């Protein structure tokens, strides 16, 4: 373990926090600032919330002698992305009542509310708690929302894997009663209330939790729409004759890096073996505890599991895992991923149920001129008997639609100008993080800007007859990787306002990262660089060849084979 002196500040905050309490109770009621006390800004993440400011207004408000417009982003967990109509309705209401009037569907299948003022935070959390949703471990140095591809129509195996994802989520949820105490007023009527006389303890995490965030995703091939290799722990379902056997286990994925620090890098998870379904929760726990004990707690830039793995070596890690499990993982089983995107429109499952996958640009559920998506979905939620499924690509599935409701849903969508599909394959697969104006880490725009960029690229695609080709474009406002930009066939990572690094050559199925092609491009630069690439692709690609693969074959970039060679 690290020397106490050298521990990062956050480690001290966690240690002194009494299981994530800190001084949050006082912070919340302090009426003269919209901010939390500095130490509490770390702890609030474990409760699912980030303190942010409206960066558009920072300098204006400073001049007005007002503090920044502090607000909280709240990330509400939706394990596997499946929410009931009642839960959807509640989130929709809370967005209007306490948030900024929009709902963000995240790249980890969670809901995000933005712009919640400190004084409304508790009321908001109580609001979704009443709908059986929570935000604990939405952020923070713990296991985050467990992802699973929500395609309900594929097979019975999906239902089984979904159950596994819920078990993992429940098993790795922090046990502290601080969440219940702070947000639910410590009232015993709630199921999260601790047993009487029970002291707080974290049997898996311990009182300083993990060194850094931890992410788990599950997928059933051939769909890799949860981008399992971008996670600390990725689980690939292996089935036989329509029954779940178990999972291939991949460890050490993670997207984040820091500009100017080549010792930081994105990395895809490494496959280390196969585990039968009934033992997978145990595997998850043990991987988490190894990272708990071995992860770097001095410098948070090197705290993710990927660095632990590359430091100790995969073999040492596997040996330790086998030891902690008391059994050895079996050899990796064969599987094949074909894509990581969503398929839009209506589909029908083996049970005859109907499902509609809707394109949600930037994952933002909002009412905009000409397209009142939020209102349309609110109306649908009032009668829809199935559920709402959040995809890992920020889109939405109206699942298990009763055949009688299909026409009504179509009518409502048409009434509010909501298109199921969108204008191009490029836009369809686009991912963007929130970035400006609320994310404090952003150097550049992402979600607010990428639609405009695509507006400029679409005529060029059309000129080369590429409008309907699926090309994955991903944009983030900083290199930390929220929209998994290093898995974009076109990756754009913000360096400064209006300037992006352009990455090319990732695999369409999420199994190979891209590589830096050009730096510090402005919009004209991006368009100028991509135009000849599109032209070349249109003329010289092979049948079924994806854009990312083509970039490598034509030598625009070298294939990235591992995290350690990402910067080469």
């Amino acid at each position: 373990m690290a020397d106490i002196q050298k521990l990062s500040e956050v480690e001290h905050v966690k240690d002194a926090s009494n299981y994530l309490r800190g001084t949050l109770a006082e912070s919340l009621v302090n009426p003269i600032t919209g901010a939390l006390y500095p130490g509490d800004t770390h702890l609030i993440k474990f409760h699912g919330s980030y303190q942010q400011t409206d960066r558009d207004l920072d300098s204006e408000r400073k001049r007005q002698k007002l503090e920044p417009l502090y607000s909280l982003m709240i990330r509400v967990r939706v394990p596997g992305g499946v929410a009931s109509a009642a839960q959807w309705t509640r989130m929709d209401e809370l967005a209007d009542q306490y948030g900024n009037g929009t709902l963000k569907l995240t790249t980890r299948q969670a809901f995000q509310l933005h712009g919640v003022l400190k004084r409304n935070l508790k009321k908001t959390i109580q609001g979704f708690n009443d709908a059986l949703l929570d935000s604990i471990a939405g952020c923070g140095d713990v296991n985050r929302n467990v992802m699973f591809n929500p395609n309900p129509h594929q097979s019975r195996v999906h239902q089984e894997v979904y159950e596994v994802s819920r078990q993992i989520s429940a098993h790795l949820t922090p046990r502290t009663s601080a969440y219940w105490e702070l947000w639910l007023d410590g009232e015993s009527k709630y199921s999260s209330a601790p047993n009487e006389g029970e002291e707080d303890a974290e049997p898996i995490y311990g009182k300083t939790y993990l060194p850094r965030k931890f992410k788990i995703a599950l997928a059933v091939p051939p769909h890799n729409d949860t981008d399992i290799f971008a996670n600390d722990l990725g689980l690939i379902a292996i089935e036989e004759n329509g029954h779940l056997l178990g999972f291939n286990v991949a460890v050490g994925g993670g997207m984040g890096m820091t500009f100017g620090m080549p010792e930081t890098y994105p990395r895809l998870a490494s496959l280390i073996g196969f585990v039968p379904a009934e033992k997978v929760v145990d595997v998850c726990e043990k991987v988490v505890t190894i990272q708990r004990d071995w992860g770097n707690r001095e410098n948070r830039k090197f705290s993710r599991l990927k660095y632990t793995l590359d430091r100790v070596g995969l073999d040492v890690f596997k040996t330790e895992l086998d030891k902690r499990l008391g059994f050895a993982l079996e050899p990796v089983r064969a599987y094949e991923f074909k894509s990581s995107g969503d398929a839009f429109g209506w589909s029908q499952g083996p049970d005859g149920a109907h499902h509609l996958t809707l394109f949600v640009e930037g994952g933002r559920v909002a009412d905009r001129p000409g397209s009142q998506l939020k209102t349309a979905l609110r109306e649908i939620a009032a009668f829809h008997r199935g559920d709402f499924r959040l995809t890992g690509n920020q889109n939405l599935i109206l699942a298990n639609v009763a055949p009688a409701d299909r026409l009504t849903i179509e009518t409502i969508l048409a009434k509010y100008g909501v298109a199921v599909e969108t204008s191009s394959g490029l836009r369809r697969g686009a991912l963007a993080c929130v970035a400006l104006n609320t994310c404090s880490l952003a150097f550049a725009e992402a979600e607010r800007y990428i639609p405009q960029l695509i507006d400029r690229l679409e005529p060029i695609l059309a000129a080369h007859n590429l409008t309907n080709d699926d090309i994955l474009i991903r944009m983030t406002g900083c290199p930390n990787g929220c929209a998994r930009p290093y898995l974009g066939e076109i990756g754009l990572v913000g360096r400064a306002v209006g300037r992006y690094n352009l990455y090319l050559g990732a695999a369409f199925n999420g199994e190979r990262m891209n590589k830096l092609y050009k730096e510090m491009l402005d919009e004209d630069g991006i368009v100028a660089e991509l135009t000849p690439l599109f032209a070349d692709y249109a003329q010289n690609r092979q049948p079924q060849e994806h854009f990312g693969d083509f970039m490598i074959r034509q030598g625009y970039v070298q294939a990235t084979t591992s995290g350690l060679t990402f910067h080469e």
Partner: protein
Amino acid sequence: MSSPTLPIGLDEATLQQLTAGLTDRQLLWLSGYLYGRAGSDAAPAAAIPAAATAPIATSVAPSLTILYGSQTGNSKKAAGIAAEAARQRGLVATVRDMNDYPTKDLKTEQQLLVVVSTQGEGDPPIAAEELHQFLLSNRAPKLPDLRFAVLALGDKSYLQFCQTGFEFDQRLAELGAKRLLERVDCDVEFEAEARRWAEQVLGLIAESVPQVAAPVAVAAAHAQVKPVALPALVGGAEVELEEQVEYTSRNPFEAELLEKIQLNGRGSTKETYHLEFSLAGSGIQYEAGDALMVQPRNRPGLVQEVLAAARLDATAPVRLETTELDLSTALTERLELSVVTRDVLERYAAVAPQHPKLREILAEKAALPAYLYGRDVADLLQEFPVELSGQQLAAVLRPLPARAYSIASSLLAHPEEVHLTVGAVRYQSNGRHKHGACSSFQADQLHLGDTARVWVDRNEYFKLPQDPSTDIIMVGAGTGMAPFRAFVEERAETGATGQNWLVFGNPHFTTDFLYQTEWLQHLKRGTLHQLDVAFSRDQQEKIYIQHRLLQQSRRLYDQLENGATFYVCGDKNRMAADVQRALLTVISQESGQGEIYAADYLKQLRKSRRYLEDVY
């Protein structure tokens, strides 16, 4: 001379020793000299023992007392004007504050000049309450030997204009005193009127007094005389003093606007500006608690509307006092357009006999304020059209008054600058958009680098405690926090050790927390000790500052018991009354002695000037 015991430790023998062998004229000179010397040490003006001067003066002339009852300091200022006029004429006058005036002295007065203002709905200023009550009661003595005159101060926009002055005047006459001069009532702009009144009444007094040879040597109390000037004048020598220009309404300073910031965040229903003016080169000094007078210009749009409604030409010549100017300029620079007051309505009714409705409105006194509220001159002209000349219109209107703003800065923190916090007044009435004359002048017409005509209006009483270790409690809503910014800056600069406690209210936390970052800094530095906020619209139930006071009941009472001074600034009608009610509840509750005790406690606080209001 059957003088009983003399006050402040003087006895008959000492007095004899001091004055033995002096001629009458020498005695007269000495009385002024001693008064001036007392004044130069910044001792309270009222410290002069009236009983000591009165008997001595009797041998030459009847005693002359100038007695003022002041709330904001204006009556004190008018008394000072009269005292200065007396000094110029070589008359000995004693200036006394009704606040410290023993009612028994009344019957020893010989010539009494009363200067008193009227508050709100016809009430006397707190400082005058006791004397007023005594005078109007049947305990008041007969005053057959007294000669008197009353200068009443007030605001014509109130129905009970100059009511207190009227009552003093009438009652003194009832008690048998002889009126030297008919009462004079002054509107907001009182100084010129006060000067005329003083000249007139002192002229009458002087006729009955032998001429004094060396008037310059007689120093009467004069609140406005700067301490540095006194020794030079008192010494009687011709000392070359660098004459400090005094900036007044007649001679305003052209202050350049250095900075203008909208303090409310986006989406606010409020529109509050922080303005910084340069005083460079003016030598203007002010203290935290003083007000800045700002002379507005009317909005071009309003001037156009008035011209159109009156069907008059912008270039029509108009004579105002001795100045010739065109009507448009007169309406822009000189005449009040955005407010209609009773006197304006009366004059308008006189030139508009074809509109009997106007006389009906005027006759319905109780309904008049409601009628006048939100009406401007354009409304009046549109509603009751008449044919009139530009000159007639000018004669109907009242002069465009300057508006007073509580200064929001400390000179120590911002040398040669004065800062204001100005809430833009805008509303809709009679189907037209209305804008407060002076607030919209500053909000809309005044740009960086422009100058505004300003001068300082001393607020005699709304001041920090003399003792820097005294705790202060500052309660303000909206722009009412302006003087408290000055107070806290001043106490931070001077290192005052008393606790500074601010209670602030406004509608919304995120947009209306005026000067938030400055307060947070003061808290961090320990120059503000407690900050309570009430944002009325941030929750279902409305929470106002008085609720915060009630929540802090114990702390508040303890601080008052510990000698704290309590300040209230802001809206007169609702906030100040609510705060006072809350304070009464706090006192009653925490002392455990009930409502009557609390009322008396508060009265004592007021009398000792530890409960101070700057309300508007």
